[in-house]
């Protein structure tokens, strides 16, 4: 994660300090909120706990980002609200678990890092492929007929989500499936007396990598320009002769694939999967995309980290209020900035 170079406020009279904080708040609301949350948490617990929780929260946020980014892009580009996104998360989790448990069990059960990687990477790849393939079919069969009609989109994607989750139960059975984490990824590394769980470090690394990759694609490539232009004004891009439909299909498939990847990561994180895990994660995903501003990748990343952090902080202080705090954060942000932290779409 980038370091906190924004905190360097110019020293001066309290009034000037206040003014510069206000300016910082209005120009970088995402950094303001993130740093504010971390500082507030630091005041409530000792440093070691805070560090461990922050890393865990960032790991959770990174995985949530993988899941949420697809949905926010789908909404931003094509104005399609896909409430079946949770089903793709479940799908990815089950596909990844199948690879680990049945096909590459020897590699996953071995105790060498390279053999474990040879089990985990194909599992993630398979999850991505399955989610992408089902995403292609889903867009074609379910979403294509209802472009431009939010109400019908909500209805058919809720229906589609039921069907997908039921099909998962048909294929994999209705019971919970335990997914043991490969040995090289479980356990912790001790840095300066602080135990940091290995898997969380991997999750953060993967999340930041995907975020960097997405930012690069969106800001530096031709496809990215088209996506941004399509979010801004879809018809104008079409007038220039680009087939926004194909572009959108690509984004939808990529979004489903990312949901699958996030689901597979989450499966190894929780070590237990059910067909309905997607529904539960959907709530965090929804909070994240509202927090970040519908359609914004950057907002989605910060929203995900915020949700991950507040979940862990509040979960440590008062476990029963974790979900309430997450939604409370969303409500507070909505009252402050009704369009989310980094709004892209004018509503």
């Amino acid at each position, binding site marked *: 994660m980038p370091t906190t170079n924004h905190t360097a406020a110019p020293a001066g009279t309290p009034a000037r300090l206040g003014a510069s904080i206000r300016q910082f708040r209005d120009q970088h609301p995402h950094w303001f909120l993130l740093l504010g949350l971390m500082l507030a948490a630091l005041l409530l617990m000792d440093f070691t706990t805070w560090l461990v929780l922050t890393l865990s929260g960032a790991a959770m946020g990174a995985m949530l980002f993988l899941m949420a980014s697809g949905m926010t892009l789908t909404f931003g580009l094509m104005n399609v609200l896909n409430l079946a996104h949770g089903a793709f998360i479940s799908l990815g989790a089950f596909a990844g678990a199948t690879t680990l448990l049945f096909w590459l069990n020897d590699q996953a059960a071995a105790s060498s890092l390279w053999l474990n990687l040879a089990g985990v990477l194909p599992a993630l790849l398979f999850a991505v492929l399955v989610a992408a393939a089902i995403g292609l079919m889903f867009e074609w069969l379910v979403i294509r007929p209802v472009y431009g009609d939010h*109400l019908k989109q909500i*209805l058919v994607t809720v229906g589609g989500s039921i069907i997908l989750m039921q099909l998962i139960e048909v294929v994999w059975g209705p019971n919970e499936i335990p997914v043991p984490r490969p040995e090289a990824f479980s356990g912790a590394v001790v840095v300066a007396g602080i135990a940091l769980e290995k898997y969380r470090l991997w999750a953060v690394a993967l999340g930041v990598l995907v975020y960097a990759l997405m930012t690069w694609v969106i800001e530096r490539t031709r496809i990215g320009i088209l996506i941004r232009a399509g979010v801004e004004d879809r018809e104008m891009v079409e007038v220039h002769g680009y087939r926004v439909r194909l572009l959108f299909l690509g984004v939808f498939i990529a979004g489903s694939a990312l949901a699958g990847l996030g689901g597979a990561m989450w499966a190894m994180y929780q070590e237990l999967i059910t067909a309905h895990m997607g529904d539960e994660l959907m709530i965090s995903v929804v909070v994240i995309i509202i927090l970040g501003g519908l359609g914004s990748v950057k907002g989605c990343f910060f929203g995900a980290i915020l949700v991950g952090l507040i979940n862990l902080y509040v979960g440590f202080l008062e476990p029963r209020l974790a979900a309430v705090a997450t939604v409370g954060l969303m409500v507070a942000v909505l009252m402050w900035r009704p369009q989310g932290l980094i709004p892209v779409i004018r*509503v």
Partner: protein
Amino acid sequence: MLSNLLSGDLPRSRRLTAALLAILLALAFGPFLFPGVRAFSMMGMICVFIILVASYDLMLGYTHIVSFAHTMFFGIGAYGVAMAVGTWGNSFGSVLLGMAGALLLTIVLALLLGLLSLRVKAIFFALVTLAVAFAFLSLVTQLYPVTGGEDGMRVRVPRELGPAFRPLEQSLWGFSLPDFCSALVSGSATAWDDALFQVRINGRTLMYYVAFGTALLVFLFLLRVVNSPFGKVLQAIRENEFRAQALGYNTVLYRTSVVILSACLACLAGVLFALINRYVNPENTLAFELMVFILLMCVMGGMGTLYGAVVGASLFLLAQNYLQDLLKLLVTQLPPDSGLANLVGPERWLLWFGLLFVLSVYFFPAGVVGQLRRWSARRQQNNPVVEVVAKPGSQTLSS
């Protein structure tokens, strides 16, 4: 008189009228027509869900507001009564007090939700309610000392509404329709006598009729609401919000008030549910699945028609209770443990319902009621239309 009672909003289809009459009669004389605990509890649920789905339709069908917090208000009503009765004893006073508290909380929450998200964009409301409803569910699940957590709460209803209360000394005669039909089919000569059975009137029967009466009254009230000037404004907002605004209507005010009204009725349904089911837990009052069921009932019955709520709730609950039996029969005809048997197993009924739901959104967006009305309108139109079309046609031919 009848037209006045229905606020001038008649079914407008002979088949729909027949179906509605059948539902009304079946529910009105339910305990005397269908013996058995299962049928009795299902009829009670139909009454509760008619209120729940009709009030949801007021938002979804008449104003195009998608809310995922309807079960939250349902749960507030149910838990309000359960907690009040648990704290202050099983008297009517505590039921009323619990209901008043639940209604108050409902109004405050609905107002906050409306103010928070209705002013931004309609789609925000769906997402925000989804998140808030989930937070509420998790709160209820976690607060074990207050709500009983996952275990839920047993509701000790007032004695007059419980099974121990006997208002009548002797039992009444009922006429079992299912037994009568099966006796007719098997050709039994004593079909009429076979079908007779004894009905013991107890507090639960009274409670059923309280629910039935409330459902009927709420339904007639909602018919009045949607056919009033207020309802017309709601439909105007649904069709073109910008235009309604331009005509001088404060659309945010209208939408917030419809959200509050609908939430209060959902809360009332929750109160009835707690009293009739006598057991509340997060799964039967607050789960996301229940919310999806309400959505299914509303859409398949027919959005934007209150009759759709009645038809949808009845059909769905029938399917939920008896489709599984049907699928179980089907499975016995198939080779065991094959892929096909897995697909049609009794626990897979939701798969088929989901498929039916998606298909009905595509092909019958107006639901059962809308489709019936369209058919009957087409048939009524056909005769005059043929005459009108035929006349100019023959003229052009002759000239």
